[in-house]
């Protein structure tokens, strides 16, 4: 892990890299983009925005993204927010190590998986919403809410991916679906202590992700600002 931290810091010191990523170590949305950048072999400057300390509301970051969320990619004059928008931008601008298959059906499937994670699952269990539920209903309810969202979403993904017995979600190579699945599975499995054996397909691909160097190098613990994050109680 220390080696990865050092390599990540070297990446950030590479003055010829024009890409800048505003992000937070423990944001799963940021992890999606870091994963893709590493797969595509793209150096970038790491700009940490500590969400726990509320740095997304700073005047400096407001200039970058008036909607106050990470990740944000800056590529010269182009500024892109939202992980899906960033990934699609990277896919078009830097087509090496393509993240979308050529055939229409599998390409659509990858976008559908991405959409399920970033619309039906992650936004519904994110910390701010879970806290909101807790305030309205009661202290345990935030967790129960999150678990029900995750269960529903994971069962849907199991159904959607049932015809693939491949190394990763939609093939032997990593594609867009995996950029969304990998950080989501790892983040919720750890935070909510999910028994992944209930989801054999997701479990299978999760085990495969753990063997991918770029996934590990992009993981929260390997980021320069990892030490500033305290897990929620």
């Amino acid at each position, binding site marked *: 892990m220390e080696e990865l931290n050092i390599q990540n810091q070297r990446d950030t010191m590479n003055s010829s890299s024009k890409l800048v990523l505003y992000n937070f170590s423990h944001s799963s949305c940021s992890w999606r983009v870091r994963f893709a950048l590493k797969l595509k072999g793209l150096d970038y400057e790491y700009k940490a925005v500590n969400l726990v300390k509320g740095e997304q509301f700073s005047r400096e970051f407001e200039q970058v993204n008036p909607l106050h969320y990470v990740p944000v990619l800056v590529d010269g004059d182009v500024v892109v927010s939202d992980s899906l928008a960033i990934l699609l931008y990277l896919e078009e601008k830097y087509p090496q190590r393509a993240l979308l298959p050529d055939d229409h059906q599998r390409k659509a499937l990858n976008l559908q998986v991405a959409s399920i994670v970033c619309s*039906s699952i992650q936004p519904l269990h994110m910390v701010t919403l879970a806290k909101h539920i807790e305030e309205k209903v009661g202290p345990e309810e935030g967790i129960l809410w999150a678990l029900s969202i995750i269960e529903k979403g994971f069962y849907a993904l199991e159904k959607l991916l049932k015809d693939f017995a491949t190394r990763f979600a939609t093939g032997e190579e990593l594609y867009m679906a995996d950029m969304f699945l990998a950080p989501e599975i790892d983040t919720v499995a750890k935070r909510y202590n999910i028994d992944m054996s209930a989801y054999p397909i997701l479990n299978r691909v999760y085990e495969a992700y753990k063997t991918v160097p770029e996934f590990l190098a992009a993981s929260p613990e390997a980021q320069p600002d990892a030490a500033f994050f305290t897990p929620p109680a």
Partner: protein
Amino acid sequence: MAESGESKLKLYSYWRSSCSQRVRIALNLKGLDYEYIPVNLLKGEQKNPDFLKLNPLGYVPALVDGEIVIADSFAILMYLEEKYPQHPLLPSDLQKKALNHQASNVVCSNIQPLQNIAVLNYIKEKVGPDEVIPWVQSHINKGFAALEKLLKDCAGKYATGDEVSMADLFIEPQILGAITRFNIDMTQFPLLSRLHEAYSELPAFQNAMPENQPDAPPSSVTS
């Protein structure tokens, strides 16, 4: 709409589904004939075994184009954009293209999922029936405020310029739902209000409106 047997495109849709409306607008803009196959969500027709065989998640909209079956409005729109490039929905400029994706995602990640039936039932049951509308309103208001900020420097006649683009297809159904179902005060959102007016002049948008669909109940038709 085409005579069945000639059109190869089929759209499984529910008249009031805002996700289905997005796709209907796109098909209209691109001049694509399609067979409209209604799926009554309130009657649970999405759980019909034939539909599930086609689309295991039972979601609408679902598009069938020959051998290809695609569910999820975003995935369908990206497919249509690639397969039928007439009347492009995405600008070729990468910054503007990204902006379209970002605005679309404000709707389909930050607003629409918070108001789907399962979530509303949860709020109704766990917090109380009186809490449902305030819950939805707070999320819509937050999301609409975000869109106002995001688009204020780049909107033209439409959301991201003077041509209709993908963001508009997400925005209009959300505005419509906000007004008709959740009593949102649109005077807080001058840009979105102006866009809503602009969309009302476009046949492609009007023909995609919920009340103009074959499965809309007669009582929903407004004069």
